[in-house]
């Protein structure tokens, strides 16, 4: 009787362990942006003859990678619009005003993915991009995803480049001209596994 009880308990415990292992195998890995090794930058045409470069110094994000089911992977990014930096204080203050980013009214620029598809070398991500109070669906290719363990921490990196038009996000059309409508956004992110 005692042997039967012990065998029963062992069987139950083995079953639970197997079940947990199975769940772990399909669970997504959550990563938080390491902003020390990530950047959000942009460039826009000036007078259609040159490029002005800038960056946002404060951003935060997270992503969840499900390598078994890539379509379940998710990506989120929040940028503090006030942190815009074009290496010119007067221009930065000008860009924060309502003629441009209106950062006192729209303090953040956000992206939240709605669907993900695995492609060769990364993912094709579609999601809601919200800037200047307007939300639009955008799709871009997120290249990378290679995971590396460094000093006991798992890290994975991605890069993307997407083009957005200011006129699509309710920026004042009268201020489109000297600076081009389209801006190229470059995001390089390194995530640290939680």
């Amino acid at each position, binding site marked *: 009787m005692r042997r039967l009880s012990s065998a029963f308990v062992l069987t139950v415990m083995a079953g639970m362990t197997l079940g947990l292992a199975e769940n772990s195998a399909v669970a997504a890995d959550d990563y938080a942006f390491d902003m020390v090794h990530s950047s959000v930058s942009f460039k826009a045409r*000036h007078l259609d003859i040159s490029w*002005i470069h800038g960056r946002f110094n404060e951003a935060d994000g997270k992503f969840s990678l499900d390598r078994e089911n890539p379509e379940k992977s998710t990506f989120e990014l929040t940028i503090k619009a006030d942190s815009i930096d074009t290496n*010119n204080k*007067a*221009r930065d*203050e*000008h860009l924060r*005003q*309502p*003629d441009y980013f*209106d*950062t*006192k*009214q729209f*303090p953040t620029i956000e992206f939240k993915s709605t669907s993900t598809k695995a492609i060769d070398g990364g993912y094709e991500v579609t999601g809601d991009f919200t800037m200047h*109070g307007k939300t639009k669906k955008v799709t871009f290719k997120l290249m990378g995803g290679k995971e590396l363990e460094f000093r006991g921490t798992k890290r994975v990196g991605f890069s993307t480049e997407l083009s957005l038009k200011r006129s699509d996000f*309710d920026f*004042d059309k*009268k*201020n489109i001209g*000297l*600076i081009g409508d389209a801006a190229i956004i470059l995001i390089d992110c390194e995530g640290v596994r939680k």
Partner: protein
Amino acid sequence: MPDLLLYLHAIVATGISAVVVTLAIGKKRTPGGTSRNQAACILATAVGLMVGYGVLEFQPNWPPTNGLDRFLTILVPAVIVIEILAIVARVPSWFAWLLRIVLGAISGRVLLHGSVYLNPDMGEWTAIQAWAVLALSGVLLIAEWLLLSELARRSEGRSITLTLSFATLAAGIAIMLAGYIKGGAATLPLATACIATTIGSCFRAGSTRMQPIIGIAIIGLFGLTGIGRFFGQLSMVDALTVVLAPLLCWVTEIRPLLRPLHGRPTWVIGLLRLVFVGIPLVVILIMAKQTFDREMAPLLGML
């Protein structure tokens, strides 16, 4: 970049439409002013604003998404409705003033709605700071509205609307020089409509207290200056100077000046008020231009 030719078109269109409506609807000279003339002034200002903002191609969103939208779609229509009710519907004076006080009290809250200032999590203001600023701005607006209305009751009111309009124009230029072009441009139709209506009223009534235009001009001055201060880069000193400068009209009522001015034509008193109010406005503009030359002008070649 500011489109000076477009602004000129807007000013001319606003001015002509406001004067035409004032002359068309107002009655010819009748002593004491009439409700019809005051209603004509309100309508003329409203038409002037619509024409002016139309020429500037201002298309506010509905529901409003930013401070300027809220000013154009909520505050301006609200003050026009209140002033129309006060004149046409013949509501009791105390009720009209109650509505004005309510509008003055909520104007700040309306303008800053959804902004970082009213969200303590954003770190700009604490909840107490937000309430303090809103309360103070409301008190200043209401106090100035009451004081200038009382002054218009005691003496001729056209110089008061003119000083309010010039203060609004000065705010607009300072806002533009600080970098918020559209916010500065928004002052042009408002100031022009008030000035044109004031001038038109000279040909349509005897003395008129211009109470409706004082209300529209004060809401315009505080509203647009507030937008320039809290969403643009207008400094607090410049903002307070332009909104409070019209109170210098009261200088002509202080005792040492009352005797020398007694019996003078009203235009002399009006001119003195314009000079007293104009001095701080000119100082503000000179300083704003200096700051622009130092900080923004190089950017125009680099931006």
